[in-house]
Structure formats: C-alpha cells, structure tokens
C-alpha cells in the first residue's frame, strides 16, 4: 500500500488560506477548531515562507504513543486516525504532537477538553465508510470515494500536495530542479525521519 503524506511547497504557498477554508467547509468543522492552518514564518522579512500545516500522519506517531486510553489506530495507507468514542480529552496528544494538530472543542473549562479532533486526511473514522455517524464525528470520507484530501485537491497554486510519499517527493524534486530553488519538505524530517533530497 501507499504511504500517504502531505507536502507543502512553501515557495508556492501564497497564504490564501483556501485549504483552511476548504477543510472547515468539507467537514463542517466547528468554530474554534482548525484541522489545518497556515503559518507564516519570518513574516515581513527576507526568507518569509508560508506553510500549510495539519496532522502529518507521522511514522511512530507521538500522539498514539502517549495516549492514556490508546484511542489511535493506523490504516493500511499509514494514516494516523483516532476513535472519538474512546478519547477522554486529556490533552496529552497535544503535548506530544510536534505540529500542534490535535484540537479540542472546549478550552479552559472545568473537567475536560472534550473529544479531540484532528485532520483525518479526509479518511473519516473507525465507523462504516461514508455513513452519517462517521460524517457527524469525523467529516466526509473522500479517501473511501477514491479522492485525495480536499485541501490539497483545490490548492490554487498546487503548493499543497497530497498522495503517495514517493510520487509526491518526485514531483517536488522535479519542481526544485526545474526552478532551481526550494526550501524542502516542511515537517518531513520530524514526521517521517526523511527529507526530500534536492
């Protein structure tokens, strides 16, 4: 099976936040939760880069390692998903996650943060694929329909790429060779212990 990844080409990202909006709309993500966000580093300075970041579906995922109730599971495509029915909202996955992906519906309340929510790579949850109960908890399941995540599919500059790791890396490598520059695959070293050789 494939190894599904995200790659944000930060030389192409124009910080339009359309990926964020598409994600929120596709999955009806509630207010206050951002499964995906765009971070601009060195804003206004030389070397400014915008990177669209969500769950990277890490190899040896830290969230799954620290979960006190073991609510995470992996798929054949090496996605890291979780079962909201098992989650207790303790917040440990957020402490461990290098990318700040886990989100909680309630912040700062007394006695729990609520069920954790994060990017599912548009692959839903543990329920039967494309059922209303799956949609209510995890949003739509585009992977089951044979589609890639909407954020990457509708990226206007094709900065955000999703798909099999080898293919994505090859596309990116080709881009970098053609234009002569590139700042690399953000988060890949942290998430997959590998980088795209340029």
């Amino acid at each position, binding site marked *: 099976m494939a190894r599904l990844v995200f790659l944000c080409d930060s030389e192409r990202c124009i910080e339009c936040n359309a990926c964020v909006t598409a994600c929120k709309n596709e999955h009806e993500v509630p207010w206050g939760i951002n499964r995906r966000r765009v971070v*601009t580093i060195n*804003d206004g300075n030389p070397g400014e880069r915008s990177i669209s970041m969500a769950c990277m579906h890490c190899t040896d995922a830290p969230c799954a390692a620290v979960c006190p*109730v073991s609510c995470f599971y992996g798929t054949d495509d090496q996605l890291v998903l979780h079962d909201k029915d098992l989650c207790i909202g*303790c917040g440990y996955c957020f402490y*461990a996650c*290098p990318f*700040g992906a886990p989100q909680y519906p309630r*912040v700062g309340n007394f006695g729990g943060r609520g069920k954790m929510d994060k990017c599912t790579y548009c692959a839903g949850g543990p329920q039967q694929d494309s059922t209303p109960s799956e949609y209510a908890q995890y949003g739509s399941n585009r992977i089951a329909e044979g589609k890639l995540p909407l954020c990457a599919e509708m990226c206007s500059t094709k900065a955000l790429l999703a798909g099999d790791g080898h293919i994505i890396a090859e596309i990116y490598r080709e881009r970098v060779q053609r234009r002569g520059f590139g700042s690399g695959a953000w*988060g*890949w070293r942290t998430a997959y212990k590998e980088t795209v050789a340029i």
Partner: protein
Amino acid sequence: MRTPLHLVLAALLALAGPALAQQMPGETPQQPPQQTQGLSAGAPEVQGTAPETGAGRGGPNGVQPETSEPQAPTGGVRPAQPQATAPQAPVAVEEIRPNLPWTARGGIQAADLERQHDREGGVISGRVTIPNQSAGILIQPDGRDWRQFRNQVLKWAGLITLVGTIVVLAVFYGLKGATRIESGRSGRRVARYNAFERANHWMVAISFVALALTGLNITYGAYWLRPVIGPEAFTALTFYGQAIHHYIAWAFALGVLVMLAIWTRQNLPSRVDLAWLRAGGPLAKGHPPAGKFNAGQKGLFWLTTLGGIAISVSGLLIMVPGLLDDVILNQWAQIVHGVLAFAMIAVIFGHIYIGSIGMEGAFEAMRDGEVDYNWAREHHSVWLQEELENARRSVAPDNLPKRSRVAGAD
C-alpha cells in the same frame, strides 16, 4: 416684490396647464402657440405643454433662485496669488535596487531548521491569521522530550519508586516487626487531635487515595487494565476517573491549606528535632525525645503541604489549559505534576505503614483523637510534658496573686 408664495402659485399654474388642455381640447390653450404648432392632436399636446427641464424650476441652471436666506458661495474668497512654498533642500534617497533573484537568495532549508531545533530545542513559530494565536507554533520538538518523560522516565522511575518503597517497608516489617508500646498500655488517654483536625486529615487522605488511583490509571492503565477489561470499559473507567480526579482535587487542595493553617506552628523545626535525627530518627534505639511532631512527621507535613500546593497548582494548569495557553509550559506542568505525584505516593506509603501496622497505638490518634499515655511518653515525650503542665495549670492555676482569695472562699 415677489414672495415665495407667488412662486408656488406660478408653479401650480404651470402644472395645471396640461390638465386643462386635456379636458378642454376645443378651447385655446394657455401656453404659447409656438409649442403646440406642428403637433398632432392627443398625447403630443400633453408632451408639448410640459415645461422644459430646469426652466420651470427657477430658471436656467446656475442661476440662484431669489431667496430671503441667501447663502454664501462655497469655497470662500480665493487669494489673488497662490501661496508660495518655501524652497526645500533636496533629501538624499537610497537607490532602490531590485530584489535578488530567488535562486540567489539562499534561504532556509526545512530539514536544516528542523535538525537545528531538534538539537537545540525551541519551537519553529510564525504568524497565523486565525484567532488561536498559539497555533502559530509550526513545529515543537519539545514534545518528543515530553513523550520520553511520560512513556519512559515517569513510567519506569515511578514503578521502581512505588514497588521499591513497598519492598523496603515489607523488609523492614519482616525484620523489626511492629513497634510496640514498650511499657504496655496504661489505660489512661491523652487527647491528641480534635474533631476538626481529624476530619480534615481524613478529607485529605480519602481525596489523596482517589487522586492517586485515578492518576496511576492514567499512567499505567493502558498497559495493564485495558487489555483485561477491553477498550470501551477502560475508556469509561478512565473518563469517569478523570472527572473524579478533576473534582476531588479541590477537596484535596482545600484540606492541604487547612493543614497549613492549623499545624504549621507545631511543625516549625526546633532543637529537639536535631537531637531526634542525630539519635537515628525512626531507626533509633530507645526513644529520643520529640515534641507533638517528631522530625520525620515534620518532614512529612512540609512535603504534604508544600508538595500539595505545588501539585494542585500544576494540576490546575493542566486541567485549565487556557490559563497557560502554551504547550511547552503545559508539558512542564505535567512533568512537575507527575514527579510530585509519585514522590508523594511513595512517602504516603510510609505514612500509611506507620499509621496502621507499623506502630502500635498510632492509628487511634487519628481514629479517636486520643492516644495512650505510655505511647505519648515513649514517642512524644516533650509534647506530653507540655500537655501535663498545661493541664496542671488549668486545674490549679498558680499565676494568680498570692494574696487574692478564690471567690466564695469565705
């Protein structure tokens, strides 16, 4: 002199003109004849009698209507000559150069930046345009260290600490057995803790046990309990355990503060404690003198109160993440919370041992509030002396003036 009323009447007349012309086609119209000439009968007559645009509304454009309240033209009076500007010295400007081409800018490499932060710590952060500004952290390598702490350090060090404490206590009990009251029970009782002190002690004790059990479940339950009872049951247990942990923590924190208020004075270090420790403390041969609390109990008191406050504060910061809103500080709060929790559980193991099977006559102090006279004489001799002196003074007060007589002595 024409008044506004005249103007209105004139306008009305002008408007009525076409209507009259329609009603009486045979009569001579009031309008000038050149407007109707050359036009066919019917509707064109109506069109033709209408006044020209602007003509019926006070004359041609640009001519102000006569009014009793004339307004000054806008803009005021213009000066004859435009004001001259003072000559200014030329300002030196830097030459504007175009940016270097992308290929020559060098720039940052994601992998290098991540490797650098991996080694040196610290987050890679930037700006976000969503309300949650803490989402500006792009990559935080510190989470890896926290994972190491929780999954390796805390798990194993905690396990070794707890099991080690139990083993040490068991060996101690096996070798030495329970500490008996050497001179036997006297049958006389000495009051040691009042009802309020005991109630507070047991509130802290019960809440501590509940907090410890639910906390240990968070640390170890996934390894031991979850495979036994299944994921759903374990989640239910942990979820309600977490709720108990959150709610009962307040009773614990309150009890610790009350302890601090009522027992601090008796737990200040004194010269007697040094002698007690020098004699060997809990392992001393014979019974070194001690006040109401010996040095070991004072240590326990300060660990419970100061550690209790620290563990409550760190727990509150974890429970209400919005207070910090910083993932790094949340990790540190959890580290402090976990280390203190295991340290306190281990020490409380020792406390429970001495208070139950380890020492004869100790448990009744917190159960009944009274201890045996001989127990007090052996373990807290200085305190017993003070109590006896206080009792004598209250029974036979010697601080009264000698010449005075007790009321009713006559």
